[in-house]
């Protein structure tokens, strides 16, 4: 099974990346790696090289599912955007000194996992960019073969309540959550309804929710290396391209463009927005001006679902305003996504919401 996982991991990498992955993994000694590099196989197909690596590894005693898991994690770290990550928040932590050491965390979580699941469940951990990356593998009892969908990847940012998790089966969800709560000594694991592929953007959104939008410029000032020097805001590409236009062409509605840009900068700030791939709205609102329009039962709300999709949706919504494809000012549920740190929403009329609260 270990060899199977190893082959799978390398199958996803490019041939040129294999050695850098091996060095990061530090399972094989540098002598082994240089031996591999010098070998003839490097010129041959990737399959042969991977076969050779698998051979060397399987001769080691400590080659087990946990060490291969670390390799898998390194591969995921190289391309984290291949998974869809959802954010969870740990709440009501009781413990002051949580386990920050990845090895400690591994043992602790492993203990709790084996209580809930198959005793063969395994945990691998790797420290990367100030976060512990974890791979949990929860095998089915009957099945001896490796099943990729039964592994879950987790990222826990140290000293924060944030956990990113890849998709998991509903059948193991409840127990896994319980194990995590026990491990981190918390009472609640809150789903933030924030999902995406870009790990950094998700972290940014989830952790810095009160300094997004226009305020983000202050935070970037702090992050910059020389906070006391004068700050030049990072210029956006769009501005540059506009300046390069033919001087003989004058824009008829320049004033309006400027006004629009000001309005957008006020809510979004001038920096590049964090990346999200999808915004999802479930809307139950009344039709605008339903009575005058002559709709039957004007008070009954319309049920709609609206999804915005694209490579970077928040940026896209700003551009929508910039290109004149949206009326300005944009509604708060589009401009405040960054501070709400959510991308799945339910919208209702104000009155509706109140009545629901009353009935509760």
């Amino acid at each position, binding site marked *: 099974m270990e060899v199977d996982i190893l082959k799978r991991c390398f199958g996803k990498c490019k041939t040129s990346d294999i050695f850098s992955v091996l060095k990061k993994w530090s399972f094989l000694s540098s002598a082994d790696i240089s031996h591999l590099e010098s070998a003839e196989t490097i010129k041959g197909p990737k399959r042969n090289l991977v076969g050779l690596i698998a051979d060397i590894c399987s001769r080691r005693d400590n080659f087990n599912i946990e060490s291969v898991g670390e390799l898998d994690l390194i591969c995921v770290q190289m391309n984290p955007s291949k998974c869809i990550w959802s954010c969870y928040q740990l709440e009501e932590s009781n413990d002051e000194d949580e386990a920050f050491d990845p090895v400690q965390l591994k043992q602790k979580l492993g203990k709790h996992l084996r209580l809930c699941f198959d005793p063969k469940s395994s945990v691998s951990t790797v420290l990367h960019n100030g976060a512990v990356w974890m791979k949990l593998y929860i095998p089915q009892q009957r099945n001896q073969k490796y099943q990729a969908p039964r592994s879950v990847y987790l990222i826990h940012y140290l000293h924060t309540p944030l956990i990113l998790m890849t998709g998991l089966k509903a059948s193991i969800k409840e127990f896994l959550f319980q194990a995590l709560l026990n491990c981190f000594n918390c009472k609640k694991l809150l789903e933030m309804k924030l999902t995406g592929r870009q790990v950094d953007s998700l972290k940014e959104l989830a952790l810095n929710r009160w300094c997004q939008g226009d305020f983000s410029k202050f935070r970037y000032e702090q992050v910059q290396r020389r906070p006391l020097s004068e700050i030049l805001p990072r210029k956006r590409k769009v501005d540059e391209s506009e300046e390069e236009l033919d001087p003989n062409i004058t824009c008829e509605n320049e004033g309006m463009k400027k006004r629009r840009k000001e309005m957008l900068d006020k809510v979004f700030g001038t920096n590049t927005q964090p990346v999200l791939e999808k915004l999802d709205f479930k809307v139950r609102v009344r039709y605008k001006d339903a009575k005058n329009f002559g709709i039957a039962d004007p008070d009954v709300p319309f049920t*709609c679902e609206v999804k915005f999709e694209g490579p970077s949706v928040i940026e896209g919504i700003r551009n929508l305003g910039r290109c004149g494809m949206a009326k300005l000012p944009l509604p708060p549920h589009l401009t405040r996504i960054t501070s709400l740190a959510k991308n799945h929403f339910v*919208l209702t009329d104000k009155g509706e919401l109140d009545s629901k609260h009353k009935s509760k």
Partner: protein
Amino acid sequence: MASRNSLQTPECQTTYTRIGSCFAPRATPKSCNIARIAPILSRQVSGEEEENIKALLNKTWHVFGLSPLYNFERKSSAFQRYSKSLSSALEAESHKGCFVDNDVPGSVEIGGIRGLTVNIGDQNAVGIFVRGKNRKAEDAMVYTALFCCVNLQFCPIPKDLQASFKYFPIMLASGPVAIMNSINNWLESQFDCRVTKLKFSSNDLLWMASLWSAYTPVPKSRPLELVYAVPQECEGLSKITYRMAAADAKRLLDIVHPDDSDELTEEEVQAYFDALESHLCYMFHAKLGTMYLRTVGNSIAYVSTDGKIKLFSMDYVFNVLAHLTQLSVERFTGTSLQTLPFSQNE
């Protein structure tokens, strides 16, 4: 009533007008009949015919337009000859290595299909079925194609040529593209015809969405779904999916379209989309009028601009096919040559 003009503030009119739909030349007639089309002699739909109709449902079909087929015979001996010729053509192609890493075609069967006609003038449908090996090397049906002619109002072939030409305005095909291409090539060389992908413009989709919304929704039916592609200059956003519960969509249509009339007019279609889009504008301030309509769908069918269709409703199969037939005939006779599918405009 909210009209499009009220949505577009003056600032926007300088930059955009509705693309490819409302102001474009019409592709469809000014009005369309929305009454349900029943199969011919509907009380006598036999089990076999019902099976044939059912086989159309819940599959993604590529829609092609066919020009009249020369020397096409409807005899079982002719069908056998065609299937032999097609299987040898496919075999030659697979020797060339056209189907590597894909489904490999094997035996071919061509035959008439009953039950897919609604009026006397319609040709009975003809099907091409290719069995072969799929990717897992199991024996399976790898390709299906149907030549249909549903509710053809007027035959564009001159009377003196009608003996040597058979006209099937649309071909529905499902299968891997490699096989589809080689079969299309074979058809073109065998019957001296032209097989073209039937692409739909945004305007066609507008019509289809409105027509199908007009059929009374069954409770709990699929919502009306509209997918808009955002123009490229708006970086970061690629599409907006807008779904509205079927009953609510019907409520909007009821206002613009009086119940007692069977005809849906162009003004009504326009007003209906204005109403739908203004609701989204009210919620999100986005002007859908400035974007391309890419896909529409509801409980009757899903259609996208690149000529793919998926049928869901047994009752309205003929309405959809008749509409496609009509579109294909229009394209063939050139009455609406000015409206190219908008995907070419990009």
